[in-house]
């Protein structure tokens, strides 16, 4: 009976090739939005985590900083219970480092004639330093003499993080919309399929077919459509991420390449694609049979 259901479902899909394909594509676009969203969200989060971990706090000194001012800043930082270490990088050292790491751009710097890089203090924070306390320290250091700029990644990250939070709410709305969209699309297609087969359904009823026997192939059809659509959208998404990972701008932001969705996410997408397709066809069936 299962075999009959499956072969009937495939035959139904095949009989309405164009509609099936159209539905699968529409469904996959809808699911694709969700997948893209997830991928962007996760990659952004990963980039943020990386950013705030790698470059915790840098104090850039003005070119005219006096030794006394430098000592004052260093003392203040070292005296803070939040700080585990302070490393001083002079202007010359910064230039040297730069030459070492970016050979091709070094010529550009040399052509300037002067050294544009500032001296800096790289501050390592204790892992248990809270962001609020750290922010207070940052604010204080910023006002000190000889300090040009304080770069606290957590601060930038914090802004991005709150953006990410609203992004998450948008994602929830998007998810809900996609959910309803997918159910509606598969509902409409399956309704068409059920109406298309209404004569046959009537005959089967007269022959004593149980409800589940009549419904089986249609439910499977919806399920398959959802699964196919989810697979399709994941395939396209994967291709897209792979392609983007190779582009220069992305390579700069995420040197390791963009991450594809984790296993749970893509399994979840396939499962929800199938489940939503199934739900759509169930609605279609209940609606149509009642008429």
């Amino acid at each position, binding site marked *: *009976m299962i075999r009959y259901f499956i072969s009937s479902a495939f035959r139904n899909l095949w009989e309405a090739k164009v509609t099936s394909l159209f539905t699968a594509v529409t469904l996959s676009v809808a699911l694709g939005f969700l997948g893209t969203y997830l991928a962007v969200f996760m990659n952004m989060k990963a980039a943020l985590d990386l950013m705030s971990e790698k470059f915790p706090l840098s104090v850039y000194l003005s070119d005219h900083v006096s030794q006394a001012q430098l000592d004052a800043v260093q003392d203040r930082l070292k005296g803070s219970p939040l700080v585990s270490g302070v490393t001083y990088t002079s202007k010359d050292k910064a230039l040297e480092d730069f030459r070492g790491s970016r050979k091709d751009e070094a010529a550009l710097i040399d052509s300037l004639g002067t050294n544009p890089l500032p001296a800096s203090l790289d501050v390592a924070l204790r892992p248990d330093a809270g962001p609020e306390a750290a922010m207070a320290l940052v604010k204080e250091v910023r006002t000190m003499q000889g300090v040009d700029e304080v770069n606290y990644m957590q601060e930038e990250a914090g802004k991005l993080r709150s953006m990410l939070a609203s992004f998450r709410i948008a994602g929830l709305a998007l998810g809900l919309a996609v959910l309803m969209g997918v159910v509606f699309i598969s509902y409409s297609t399956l309704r068409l399929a059920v109406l298309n087969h209404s004569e046959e359904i009537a005959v089967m009823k007269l022959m004593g077919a*149980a409800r589940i026997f009549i419904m089986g192939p249609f439910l499977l059809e919806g399920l398959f459509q959802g699964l196919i659509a989810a697979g399709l959208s994941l395939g396209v998404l994967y291709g897209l991420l792979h392609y983007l990972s190779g582009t220069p701008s992305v390579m700069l932001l995420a040197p390791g390449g963009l991450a594809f969705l984790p296993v749970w996410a893509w399994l979840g997408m396939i499962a929800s694609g199938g489940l939503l397709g199934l739900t759509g066809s169930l609605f279609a069936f209940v609606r149509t049979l009642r008429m």
Partner: protein
Amino acid sequence: MIQFYHVSKSYDGRQQAVSDISFRVKKGEFVYLTGPSGAGKSTILRLMICAETPDDGQILIAGRNIARLKQHDIPKLRRGIGVVFQDFKLIERKTVYENVALSLRILGYSEEVIRKKTGHVLKSVGVYSRKDSYPLQLSGGEQQRVAIARALVKDPIILVADEPTGNLDWDVTQDIMALIKDIHAQGTTVIVATHNREIIKRMPKRVLHIEAGRMLEQG
């Protein structure tokens, strides 16, 4: 097996298609339902399989009042009845083989049994060579034989045949009637609606004759 008590039925409130019909068919009996066109034969058969509900009266099938059947009991009742519809009601999208096999699929038979029984019944009605054709590729007589095969294949408790030989020549008619006789011999209760007097003459059985929706004789 089948009892009608003062059954009346009218379609959309017009003149009654059958009125005040009472009869009884015993288990294992073979009866003909005769009468002119429009007399109400098909209506009576449709009432038997719950395809129509009576306006008045009671219908008992296998000891159960069909008015009291629950929603899921109707399919169960129908599964035990083999029906040859006057208009065949073959499924156009399915092959001859699949149309007949469907009858067994509904009953939950295994694929192996389905293959064996379906092949056998298609041979016995003489359309085995057309098993992979679609109904619309068949002649009227061939379609009718497929419809008969579909009803016979499941060894029903009751066989309800509405003009099962209407499109067949006399030779094939005799073959088909022989098959119906066979299944009757195995204990199936048979009701055949027909206006072919020749059949009744050659294979005399009890005749229920109706005219204009009323039962005239119960031979």
